[in-house]
C-alpha cells in the first residue's frame, strides 16, 4: 500500500495489531460495564413511559398501578439476570441464548435464538440511532428533512470507532454511559429528598385531562407489564460477549452482569417511583409532550442546568445503545460462522483484531432498515422486543434442561428460578407478539424463519463440501500419475508470450500447443517456436466461447488423470491494480476457465519495465521453485500437489499461512499422517494478510523471471451452484492480486470441482 494510504489508515483505524496482541484487546470490568450496559441501561430512558402509555388508557386507576407493575418488572429482571449468571459460567465461549438453546434444546431452537438475536441487534442499532436523531431533530426542527443523513453520519461514526477496536470504542463511550447513570441517580436522589423532607414536585402533565378508553382488566395489566419489560432489553448482551472480558472471563462477566442489574433495577424503580409521585401523565396520541424522564427531571430540578444534563445524557445513551449491538453482532456471527451456519468470512479479524466483516454488515443492514422505515422511531420500535424475548425464553428453558441433566447440588432451586423466568418471559413474548403483530412485529416474525432456513442451508452446504473433499474414492493422490498438456493462448507476440514459452518448455509437458484468434500471427509464431503447432480459432462467436470449446474438445481425448493447462501470458503496462480492469475480456476468459472441468490455468504475467531486448525470453529458466498454497489436507490440496509434481520443478513445497498455535499443530499432524512426500511450511501471518505474507515469502527466492522462477499453485474450489461460491473464502483471488506484479512469479489455478448434491 502506498505511504499516503498507510498514513490515512493509521489515522482512522490505528496501528494494525498482531495476532499475539489479542489479550490487549480484552476489557477490564470498568470498560466492559459501559460497553455492554449502554443498551440495557438506555432502556430505562423509556421503559416507564411505555408502561404509562398503556396504563393511561385505564385512567387514574390505571396510573396508580405503575408502582406494583414496576416492582414486578424489577423482579423479572432479577430472575432473568440470575439465569444469565449461570449461563455465562456454563458457556464462557459466549454465544448466549444461541449456545444454550443449541446445546440443550437442539439445532432448530438454537437457530431460532440466533436469528432472533441477529435481527434484534440490527434493530437495536436502527432504533437507538433513530432515537438519537429524533432527540436532535426535536431540538432543532430545521434538521428534520436531513434525518437520514444524520442517522448515516452516526452509523458511520460508531462503525469507525468499532473498527478501531473494542477497547478503544469502549473507553470513549464509557463517559456518556457513566454520565447517564450519574445524572439519573442525581435526579432520583433530589426527588427522594424533596418527597421525604418537603413536598413532592408535580409534573407539568399532572393536570392533563384525559379520558379513559378501557376499563381496568387483567389483559390491560398484562400489556402494561409487557410494555414495562422493555427495561429488560439488553440484558442478554453480556452473556453473548463473555470472550471480550479479561481473565477470569466468566467470573468477571458474572460480576459485571450483577452490577448492571443493580444499576438498571434501581434506576428503573427510581424513575417509576418518581413518575408515580409526580403524577406524570403520558398519552400516546398527544403531540408536543416531553418524555416521561424529561418531565420528571424538569419537575425535580425546576428546569435549570441539571434538567439539561439529564436530557443530554439520555440522548447520548440512546445513541450509544447501538454500541452494545456492535459488540455482540460481530461476535455472534463469528460464532455462527465457526459452527458453519454463516459464511466463514465472518470469522476473519481485521487490522485491529475485531471481526470487521460483522461490523460492516451490521452497519449496512441497520442503514437499510433506517432508509426503509424513513428513520421513523414509532414504526421501528414496534419491531423491537420480539427477538429479545424469544432469546430470553429459549435461553432460560435451555438452562432448566441443563441444570436438570447435570444435577449439581442445589439444582432444583436454580432450575425453578430459570423455569419461572422462562414461563414469565414466554407469556410476555406472546403478549408482545399479539399486541404488536399488526404494528410491525409481523415483519420480524416472518423474517425469522427465512434467516433460520438460510443458516440451515449454509450449514448443509458446508458439510457436503467437507464430506466430498475428504471422500476417499476421489483422492487424486492414489491415482496413477497423469500427463501434462499445455496450451498457450497467444493474443499477441510480445515479451510475455516469449517468456511463457520459456516457462512452459522448462516444465517439460507431454505436449505443447498454441492457440490464437488472430490469423496474422502465424509466420511470426513459427519463427519464435517452430516446434509448437499454432491453431487459429475462428468463428463468429466470442473469444471466450471459442477458447473454451477448443479446450473441451481437447479434453475429450485425455485421460481423467491428465492435466490440460491453458497458459495465459500477460504483458502489464504498470504495477497498478487497474491493469486487471484494463483487460475485461481477458479477465472474463480466465474466470470462465475456472468453471470448465478438468482445465487448469497458468498465468505468466510480465510488467513492461522488465523488458530487456538483449535477453531471449524464450530460454528455459534453470530453476523453478513450486509453492503449493494449502489451507488444509483434503482432495483439492492433493490434486494441486499432484499437479505440482507434473511440472518437473527444482523443488516442491507446500506453504500455509496461519495464526493460532492449535490450528498449525493440527495441520502439521494431518500432513504427517497423509504421508505427502513434500515438505510443508507453515508461516505466521500475524497481521492476517496472506497476500502480503506470501509476497514476502516469495521474495526470499530472489527470482528474476529469466533464470529462476517461482510457480505458485493455487488449489481452488468450484462449487456447482454459483451463488454458493460466496461461502468460500476468496483467498486465491486475494493472493493473485499480490503475485501478479512480482517479478518472475507465475501462478496456476487448479480448480477442484465439487459435485455437492
Amino acid at each position, binding site marked *: 500500500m502506498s*505511504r499516503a494510504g*498507510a*498514513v490515512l489508515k*493509521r*489515522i482512522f483505524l490505528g*496501528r*494494525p*495489531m*498482531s*495476532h*499475539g*496482541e*489479542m*489479550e*490487549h484487546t480484552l476489557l477490564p470490568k470498568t470498560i466492559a460495564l459501559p460497553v455492554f450496559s449502554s443498551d440495557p441501561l438506555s432502556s430505562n430512558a423509556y421503559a416507564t413511559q411505555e408502561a404509562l402509555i398503556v396504563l393511561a388508557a385505564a385512567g387514574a386507576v390505571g396510573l396508580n398501578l405503575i408502582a406494583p407493575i414496576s416492582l414486578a418488572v424489577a423482579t423479572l429482571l432479577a430472575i432473568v439476570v440470575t439465569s444469565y449468571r449461570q449461563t455465562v459460567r456454563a458457556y464462557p465461549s459466549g454465544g448466549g441464548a444461541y449456545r444454550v438453546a443449541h446445546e440443550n434444546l437442539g439445532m432448530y431452537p438454537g437457530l431460532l435464538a440466533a436469528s432472533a438475536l441477529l435481527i434484534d441487534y440490527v434493530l437495536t442499532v436502527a432504533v437507538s440511532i433513530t432515537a438519537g436523531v429524533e432527540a436532535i431533530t426535536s431540538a432543532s426542527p430545521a434538521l428534520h428533512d436531513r434525518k437520514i443523513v444524520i442517522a448515516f453520519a452516526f452509523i458511520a461514526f460508531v462503525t469507525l470507532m468499532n473498527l478501531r477496536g473494542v477497547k478503544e470504542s469502549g473507553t470513549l463511550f464509557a463517559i456518556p454511559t457513566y454520565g447517564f447513570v450519574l445524572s439519573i441517580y442525581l435526579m432520583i436522589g433530589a426527588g427522594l429528598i424533596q418527597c421525604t423532607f418537603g413536598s413532592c414536585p408535580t409534573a407539568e402533565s399532572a393536570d392533563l385531562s384525559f379520558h379513559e378508553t378501557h376499563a381496568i382488566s387483567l389483559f390491560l395489566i398484562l400489556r402494561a407489564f409487557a410494555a414495562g419489560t422493555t427495561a429488560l432489553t439488553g440484558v442478554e448482551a453480556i452473556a453473548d460477549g463473555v470472550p471480550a472480558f479479561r481473565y477470569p472471563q466468566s467470573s468477571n462477566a458474572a460480576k459485571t452482569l450483577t452490577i448492571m442489574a443493580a444499576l438498571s433495577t434501581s434506576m428503573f424503580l427510581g424513575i417509576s417511583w418518581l413518575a408515580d409521585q409526580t403524577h406524570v401523565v403520558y398519552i400516546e396520541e398527544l403531540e408536543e409532550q416531553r418524555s416521561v424522564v424529561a418531565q420528571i427531571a424538569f419537575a425535580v430540578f425546576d428546569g435549570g442546568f441539571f434538567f439539561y444534563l439529564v436530557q443530554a445524557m439520555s440522548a447520548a445513551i440512546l445513541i450509544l445503545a447501538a454500541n452494545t449491538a456492535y459488540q455482540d453482532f460481530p461476535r455472534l456471527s463469528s460464532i455462527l460462522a465457526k459452527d458453519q451456519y454463516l459464511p466463514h468470512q465472518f470469522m476473519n479479524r481485521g487490522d485491529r483484531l475485531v471481526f470487521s466483516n460483522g461490523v460492516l454488515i451490521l452497519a449496512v443492514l441497520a442503514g437499510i432498515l433506517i432508509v426503509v422505515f424513513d428513520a421513523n422511531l414509532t414504526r421501528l420500535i414496534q419491531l423491537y422486543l420480539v427477538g429479545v424475548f424469544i432469546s430470553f425464553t429459549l435461553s432460560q428453558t435451555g438452562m432448566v434442561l441443563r441444570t436438570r441433566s447435570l444435577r449439581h447440588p442445589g439444582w432444583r432451586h436454580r432450575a425453578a428460578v430459570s423455569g419461572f423466568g422462562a414461563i414469565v418471559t414466554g407469556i410476555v413474548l406472546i403478549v408482545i407478539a399479539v399486541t404488536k403483530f399488526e404494528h410491525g412485529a409481523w415483519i420480524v416474525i416472518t423474517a425469522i424463519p427465512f434467516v433460520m432456513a438460510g443458516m440451515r442451508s449454509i450449514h448443509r452446504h458446508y458439510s457436503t463440501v467437507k464430506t466430498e473433499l475428504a471422500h476417499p474414492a476421489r483422492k487424486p493422490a492414489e491415482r496413477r500419475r497423469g500427463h501434462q498438456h499445455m496450451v498457450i493462448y497467444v493474443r499477441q507476440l510480445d515479451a510475455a508470450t516469449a517468456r511463457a514459452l520459456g516457462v512452459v518448455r522448462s516444465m517439460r509437458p507431454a505436449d505443447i500447443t498454441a492457440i490464437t484468434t488472430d490469423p496474422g500471427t502465424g509466420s511470426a509464431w513459427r519463427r519464435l517456436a517452430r516446434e509448437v503447432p499454432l491453431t487459429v480459432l475462428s468463428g463468429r462467436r466470442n473469444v471466450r466461447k471459442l477458447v473454451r470449446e477448443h479446450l473441451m474438445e481437447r479434453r475429450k481425448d485425455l485421460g481423467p488423470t491428465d492435466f490440460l493447462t491453458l497458459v495465459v501470458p500477460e504483458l502489464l503496462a504498470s504495477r497498478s491494480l487497474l491493469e486487471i480492469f484494463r483487460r475485461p475480456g481477458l479477465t472474463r476468459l480466465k474466470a470462465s476457465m475456472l468453471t470448465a472441468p478438468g482445465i487448469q490455468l497458468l498465468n505468466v504475467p510480465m510488467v513492461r519495465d522488465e523488458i530487456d531486448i538483449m535477453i531471449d525470453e524464450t530460454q528455459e529458466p534453470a530453476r523453478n521453485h513450486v509453492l503449493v498454497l494449502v489451507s488444509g489436507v483434503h482432495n483439492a490440496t492433493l490434486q494441486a500437489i499432484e499437479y505440482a509434481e507434473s511440472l518437473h520443478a527444482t523443488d516442491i513445497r507446500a506453504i500455509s499461512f*496461519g*495464526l*493460532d*498455535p*492449535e*490450528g*498449525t*499443530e493440527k495441520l*502439521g*499432524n494431518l*500432513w*504427517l499422517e497423509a*504421508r*505427502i*512426500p*513434500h*515438505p*510443508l*511450511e*507453515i*508461516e*505466521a501471518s*500475524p*497481521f492476517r494478510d496472506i497476500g502480503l505474507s506470501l509476497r514476502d515469502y516469495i521474495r526470499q527466492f530472489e527470482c528474476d523471471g529469466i533464470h529462476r522462477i517461482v510457480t505458485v499453485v493455487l488449489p481452488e474450489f468450484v462449487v456447482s451452484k454459483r451463488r454458493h461460491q460466496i461461502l468460500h473464502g476468496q483467498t486465491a483471488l486475494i493472493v493473485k492480486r499480490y503475485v501478479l506484479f512480482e517479478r518472475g512469479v507465475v501462478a496456476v489455478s487448479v480448480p477442484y470441482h465439487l459435485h455437492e448434491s
Partner: protein
Amino acid sequence: MAFLSRLLDRLARTPEDFRAENLRWWRSSIPGTTPIAELRARERAKVAGVIQNIRIDPREGSGAIEATIIDGTGHMVSKWLGRDRMPGIGLGMGLIMEGMCGIGDDGELVMLNPEYDLVTDPEHA
C-alpha cells in the same frame, strides 16, 4: 516541517517494526538469554523467540520438524529429528531453548534437538 515529517514517519511506522520492538523487550525479560544477533556458531547458548515458521519434512528419515524463531534482532532455527508428530509447537508461541548453535544449509543458525520450553502467549506482557 521537521516535526511534521517525524510525525508522519511515526504514523507510517510499520506494524512489523512495532512488533520487533515488543519482541526485543520480551526477550530481555527472560534471564540468561542472548539476542540472536549476538550468537556465534559452536557455542552453547540460551535464546528466546516467537515461532514464525514451522517446516515439516516427511522425507528425511522418519520426519524432521523445524521451527524458525524471531526475537526482533534476527532469526534462527530449532530442528527436531525423527519425529512423526508435532512436538507441541505452534505459530506465535514463545520458544525458549538451550543448546549448541550450529550452522544450517543456508547459513542460518540451527540448534539440533535443543532443550526447550514453550510459552503460550509471549506477545502480551
